[in-house]
């Protein structure tokens, strides 16, 4: 297995576990805002619990091969689609494709900055800020 293949396998595995943690944390029912908050909390907690994995998923993916970068972009697309659906579900206007991608980019950029600063363990403290950002920008018409 080449270094690129090893990285791709580790990346896919990490993204799969992150997605699984988020999906498992979202209850079947409840106030829409609560559902979004639960998913966000689970994602941040997951990354905070494993800073090396957070670094791999968010930092090393930027410097990796073009195929790994494509995988990272697909992850961003999935996040954008999930945000588009979630924010719409919260009762606000569902953001358009471009705005959903901008939201996903802002979210990931903030988390990446925290990881780069060696503050992955502190990510859960950003939850209210990020939730406010997603609702503020995502749910406006």
């Amino acid at each position, binding site marked *: 297995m080449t270094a690129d293949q090893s990285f791709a396998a580790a990346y896919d595995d990490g993204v799969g576990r992150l997605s699984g943690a988020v999906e498992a944390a979202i209850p079947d029912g409840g106030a829409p805002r609560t559902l979004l908050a639960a998913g966000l909390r689970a994602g941040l907690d997951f990354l905070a619990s494993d800073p090396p994995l957070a670094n791999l998923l968010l930092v090393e993916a930027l410097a990796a091969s073009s195929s790994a970068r494509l995988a990272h972009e697909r992850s961003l697309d999935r996040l954008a689609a999930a945000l588009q659906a979630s924010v719409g579900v919260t009762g606000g206007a569902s953001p358009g494709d*471009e705005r959903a991608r901008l939201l996903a*980019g802002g979210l990931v950029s903030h988390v990446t900055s925290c990881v780069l600063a060696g503050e992955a363990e502190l990510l859960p403290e950003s939850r209210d800020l990020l939730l406010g950002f997603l609702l503020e920008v995502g*749910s406006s018409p």
Partner: protein
Amino acid sequence: MTPSEQPCAAGREGRFGEGALAGLPAELALSRLPAGRHGLPRSFVAGNQRLRIFAALLRLLPEHGYAALTIGHITRGAGVSRAAFYQQFAGKEDCFLAALDVASRWLCERVEAAVEGLEDWEARVRAAAAAALTLLGANPLVGHLLAVEAPRAGGAARERQQLLLDRFAAALRAGHPGREDLPDEMADLLLGGVVTMLARYVRSGRAETLPEATEALVGFLLIPYLSGEEPGATLA
């Protein structure tokens, strides 16, 4: 940096931004100088070589990426010797950071010029976004340097990129008419989204269409500052 280090915003076809070369025609400033005695001042030769190195760096980054790009690639692309390269830069990172500084200053100066004289905050945001997207759409290699390579070129490059973003974030916050309770980090989050969008357009070869995204981008930047109520207040 010297005045002759004005950004050389090369496009894929070797295009350069207007006014980028401190009064020198691009064809002259960037052309390879004749070998041997040519009677040109040493400072001109050095400036010419530096510009050609920047141009080569910009042109080669999308092909190789920062990590795989070598000084040999750059010197061959610029048509300069290794000795000439090392007279200008301590190494690849030094060269990259210098190019990043030039490109950042180039973008800032032009965006700030676009909003000069505008008093209304919203009009300033609109003008700045339109100017930035137009500039980067016309100079995709600069967009690639700033949005794609800077985050992956090491800590110093990321710090430089962050300084640029901080400058735009401060401008976005300054004098906004929105709620006083908006956190300062809101502008950082918004600009993080913008950089990700720029990187996507540039990497996918759609940089030229960036100006078409101006309305979506402006809407994204304005929303938190122009909306009147607490986020999701009615959704709990």
